[in-house]
């Protein structure tokens, strides 16, 4: 149980304390193998991060370029604008709702593909990923067409006489959450599938043999053993959802503006890159802190007890 849990967790991108067995004596080869990854991280993650960090201390000069004449933390003071809490709260609300909905919809799908997909598993997984072949923008535009006042949903509801006048979906929280859930669902299903597929179903059978009900076996065996997958899926959904501004912008309106959209406004309308960089840094710090805290408690509960 321990090893399969740890493996599943490792596969799903979660670090476990147990880790893989060390092989002393392969220092150089290991270093060489790791090198490209490290270089990649330095060039494409740490270096840009450092640049953003430096930018955030500067200011805009009259020519529109970034000046470091008076470096300081003024941009960070601006980033702590109390009005932003509303937008940040909205981001968390949308991301949380999206994550919960994606888990509720995605778990049965992943479970079904894993248990009953048979030889068509690959095909079914490809189908899950199929939407990625079309631009997210185009797909969100499709939702706009489906949900708008004279759209498909309102047309159907009015034809069947359920409503008199069209419901205003566009601009409301519900269409934003719907659009985001649609967009992030594949990110939820894939880690869940990996985790469920790794589950040794003999354990479930054993539980049934020991007179556990179907529900009991699921709640006491299947669910705890696939918890690492659920954690991974939640993170892979929640964190990108937190940065989404396209969906709230397209399907929402004046009252669905998220904190990511504020960052975008600062960069585009404001032409103020240093301020945008500072705002981005603050958000990143909050996200990382939140994730670490969540992971720590989850690890203790989920992986810790299993080990």
């Amino acid at each position, binding site marked *: 149980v321990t090893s399969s849990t740890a493996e599943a967790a490792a596969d799903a991108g979660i670090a476990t304390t147990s880790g893989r067995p060390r092989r002393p004596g392969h220092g150089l080869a290991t270093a060489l193998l790791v090198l490209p990854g490290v270089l990649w991280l330095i060039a494409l993650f740490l270096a840009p991060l450092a640049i953003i960090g430096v930018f955030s201390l500067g200011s805009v000069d009259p020519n529109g370029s970034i000046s470091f004449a008076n470096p300081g933390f003024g941009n960070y003071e601006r980033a702590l604008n109390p009005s932003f809490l509303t937008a940040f709260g909205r981001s968390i609300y949308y991301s949380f709702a999206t994550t919960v909905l994606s888990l509720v919809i995605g778990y049965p799908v992943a479970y079904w593909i894993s248990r009953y997909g048979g030889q068509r598993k690959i095909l079914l997984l490809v189908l899950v990923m199929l939407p990625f072949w079309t*631009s997210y923008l185009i797909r969100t535009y499709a939702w706009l067409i489906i949900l708008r006042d004279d759209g498909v949903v309102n047309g159907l509801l009015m034809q069947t006489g359920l409503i008199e006048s069209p419901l205003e979906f566009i601009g409301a929280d519900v269409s934003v959450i719907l659009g985001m859930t649609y967009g992030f669902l594949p990110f939820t299903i894939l880690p869940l599938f990996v985790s469920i597929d790794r589950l040794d179903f003999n354990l479930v059978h054993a539980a049934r043999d020991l007179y556990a009900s179907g529900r009991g076996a699921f709640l006491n065996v299947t669910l705890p053993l696939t918890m690492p997958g659920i954690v991974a899926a939640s993170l892979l959904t929640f964190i990108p959802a937190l940065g989404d501004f396209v969906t709230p912008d397209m399907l929402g*309106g004046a009252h669905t503006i998220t*904190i990511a959209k504020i960052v*975008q406004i600062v960069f585009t309308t404001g032409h103020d890159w240093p301020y945008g960089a500072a705002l981005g840094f603050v958000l990143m710090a909050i996200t990382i802190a939140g994730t670490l805290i969540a992971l720590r408690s989850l690890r203790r509960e989920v992986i810790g007890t299993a080990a």
Partner: protein
Amino acid sequence: MTREIDGGMTFNEALELRLQEAGWTRREFLRRVAAVGAFAALSQLLIACRQPGSPTAAPSTAAETPAGSQAGQASTPPASTAPTPVPQPESELNVYNWSYYIGRDTREQFTAKYGIKVNYDKFPDENTQISQIRRDGRGGGYDVTYPASTWIPTFIQEGLIQKLDHSLIPNIKNLLPEWRDPAYDPGSEYSVPYSWWTTGYAWDPDKIPGDLTSWDALWDAAYTNRLSMLDDMRECFASGAFRLDLDPNTTDVAQLDQILAELEAQKPIVKRYTTDHIAAMLNGIVDIAHCWSGDWIQMTYDKPKIRYVIPTEGSIKGNDVFVVLSGAQHPIAAHLWIDFNLDAQISADNTNYIGYMGPNEAALPLLKKYIVDDPRINPPAEMLATLIELKYLPPDDNAKYLDRWTSLQAT
């Protein structure tokens, strides 16, 4: 054209690009989709998206074989006795303009006349335009673009645009006298006016009967969720300033706070802040839209009943200009483009199609009556004098606006 949405593009820009690849404009897209129905349209889109890119290829930023007048002359036999030779234009031109901001076949006519291929890219909003041309500090690979005149002093200071050679733009004589020596660019050294606008709002009289005249209409709770405001920081602050009888170019913090309070009071009734208000009005998403004069003309092509007013409290006017970017690789063709667009007939074609008034005197007799005679599109001099131009804000003042605008958006 495989740039991705998170590559620093706004989603509008990305959408525009995507639709451009498919060879469509956004309105065509919306219209088709509405007409054919969601599923049919999507399958169409799938097909369209797989087709190879349309002729609007991205301008190449790589250095080409030395084009331009010098090279052209150098390769011809050294005829030192000849009079000043006409410079040889390049074979291509990279133009960067707003959507729906040029006559229907101006590009084709230009190519037919000069044999110069026009690579024509569109931007959906000013922010996109400015960030693209500032990308390398020299115009981002474009030769000609159409910024608002207020940017000109900044662009000159930045070295983003180049001095114009008036000998290549003889049609500049067609301009109305009042446009020949603008305050933002004395002597038209760096820019040539293209078109100008007023700001106001449009409404659908089927949904909102009666005459609207005041900015108050945009604060009327009767239109809750039926109103769109321009996704334009300066225009929104200006609308609040006019309501409070303040200067729309104010940089006074106390006054800006007053305006912010006004805009915060308005926000509950606003459906969206957008520059896609033409589609929003035509699709019935909103019934009243804060917009520019030409947008209204374009709305009336589909819904002739739609009305427009310049509010009586005062409003904004402004103009867009042609500039040649400092990094232009086809400077001669760029000058020819400007000259061509100043031709009486071409200028009239542009104005008649886009609905924004032009500064071209020679084109006046060729303009459609509903444009040239409409005081909202072509206000008489005394009215024009009451309209105010938005001034460029230096970074410190811009920050005052930006901090309040982001607060407004966030809440």
